């Protein structure tokens, strides 16, 4: 941008001309930890997408000759009680964790944003009713809500993914997003351009979708990133309890559940590595979410 200075007039040093900073570099500079989180997230994505090429073994292949063998060059993280390669199961588990986590966080946040925006836009009775429901939902820990939904809906497989599990993880995310979307909407609804849209005779649906929702994209992105971390943790917890992903699908929480506890002493690697995989993933998404928040919307802090 600053390559050619005008010939006439005082010469301004190139460093004196304000340059539009590269947004990616600016983010790295302002939020170095967030960038670390981003890199870890990328790594997990690489594992999830490249699983067939990265995993040295078939994650479901049983090999009784290699039962409970410790970490070695052949089996990097050892094998489990069926002789399945723990590393390969972790790599494929990234697929389960990321797909369930991302789909349910997106679904929950989108529903929450729509409900919150509607509630804030209309106000009055609709707002009161929606807010009471949100209040009730917020008074339960998310895992309790998810378990109730699992109990009520049961299992329903679609394209190899348990749709009801995704619903169960998405629903606890709705009320928090609805709260945030509502408070943003309340201030946006005061804006002259909303009056203008109303005066132009646009329908309520159009005003909410075209004029309000685009203005809550920042909190939406921040919350979605943070919710992916929660969704991954929630999926792992549910699978651990036997209420989420079921065998033989590789999933981190599942790898820690059931009989794996009988092998505490004989095969601690069966417990150490899946837990590390969950912790690191949750940590990375949390880090990324926090720095996105600080960076995009400092007001949301706290």
């Amino acid at each position, binding site marked *: 941008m600053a390559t050619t200075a005008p010939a006439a007039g005082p010469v301004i040093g190139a460093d004196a001309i304000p340059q539009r900073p590269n947004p990616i570099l600016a983010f790295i500079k302002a939020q170095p930890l967030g960038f670390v989180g981003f890199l870890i997230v990328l790594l997990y994505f690489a594992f999830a997408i490249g699983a067939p090429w990265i995993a040295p073994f078939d994650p479901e292949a049983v090999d009784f000759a290699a039962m409970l063998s410790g970490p070695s060059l052949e089996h990097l993280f050892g094998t489990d009680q069926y002789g399945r390669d723990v590393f390969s199961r972790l790599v494929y588990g990234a697929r389960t964790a990321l797909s369930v986590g991302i789909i349910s966080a997106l679904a929950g946040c989108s529903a929450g944003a729509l409900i919150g925006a509607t509630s804030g836009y209309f106000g009055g009775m609709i707002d009161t009713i929606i807010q009471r429901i949100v209040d009730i939902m917020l008074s339960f820990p998310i895992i309790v809500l998810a378990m109730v939904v699992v109990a*009520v809906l*049961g299992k329903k497989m679609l394209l190899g993914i348990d749709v009801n599990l995704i619903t169960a993880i998405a629903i606890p995310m709705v009320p928090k997003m609805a709260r945030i979307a509502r408070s943003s909407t309340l201030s946006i609804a005061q804006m002259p351009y909303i009056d203008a849209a109303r005066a132009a005779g646009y329908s309520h649906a159009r005003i909410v979708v075209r004029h309000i929702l685009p203005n809550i994209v920042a909190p939406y992105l921040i919350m979605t990133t943070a919710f992916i971390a929660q969704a991954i943790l929630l999926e792992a*917890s549910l699978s651990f309890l036997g*209420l989420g992903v079921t065998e033989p699908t590789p999933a981190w929480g599942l790898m820690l559940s059931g009989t794996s506890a009988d092998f505490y*002493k004989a095969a601690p690697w069966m417990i150490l590595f899946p*837990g590390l995989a*969950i912790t690191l993933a949750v*940590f990375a998404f*949390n880090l990324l979410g926090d720095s996105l928040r600080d960076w995009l919307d400092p007001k949301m802090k706290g």
Partner: protein
Amino acid sequence: MLGFLLRRILLVIPTLIGVAVAVFFLIRIVPGDVVVVKLRADGAQVTQDAIDAERKRLGLDKPLAVQFTDYMLGLAVGDLGKSLWTGESVAKEIAIRFPVSFQVAIMATLIAVLIGVPLGILSGLHRESWIDNTVRVLAVSGLAIPGFWLGMLIILMLLAVFNWLPKIGYVSIFEDPVANLTALIWPALSVGYRYAAVVARMMRSALLEVMREDYVRTARAKGVFERLVVRRHAVRNALLPVVTVVGLEFAFLIGGLVVTEQVFNLNGIGKLFVDATTRGDFTLIQGLVLLIATIFVIVNLVVDILYAYLDPRIRLQ
């Protein structure tokens, strides 16, 4: 103060009724048929006859209005119905398991407050120092480590270091305090770690905020000892949001207990909830959800009262 108390206690009733109504309809308006799900979980043949018979047995064939009146009238006299699985009364099923979970919850809260508050204060007073950085790393990891995995790590450590595990089965603290505490301290630690992390974070940020207030500057300017400024002016005010967080997290402890009791094989409320969910025991789930909501409401009431005690401005409103 008395008027304030009465007003707050009276407000609890409509909230609880709201939850009861919500739970009733949640289980009945969902698309899936509860009875079918339950029969599948039982492993029974799902024929129309079986469904009808089960509906009749559970009283689900009556009109919605009748069911609703029965349910609400039952609640009014403390009748939560019978477990679909064991046939025992829900209240009894819960009462048997309540003491273990309650004790773990109290111990976890003590751990969180006794560790979280001092660490949060230290971290806030020595901002950007090595103490602060250590506390922050510990706190952030406390939010990322899954509770059940932490529990498993604790068991692994007990085995590796002491080659010992607490005995399975609950002994009351009044019978054998040593056996009771040596068994329950570990689940309490594994639930309490996350809790302490949340408390420490809140304490730190509240303290940082208060330290910027005018009255802290004034106290320093008039020559009050720094220790007194911290203790009387800063910490006392910074404690208010911490009280809220401790209360909220206490009400939410059941979320941590659900997984932790599974890891440590404790027969508490959390395990009961998992079993009820796996078996599709809807009356039990209904009762447990009401219990959790009641705890939430009571904890909020206690927090409000504590607030009024700590901050006279609230009482006067």
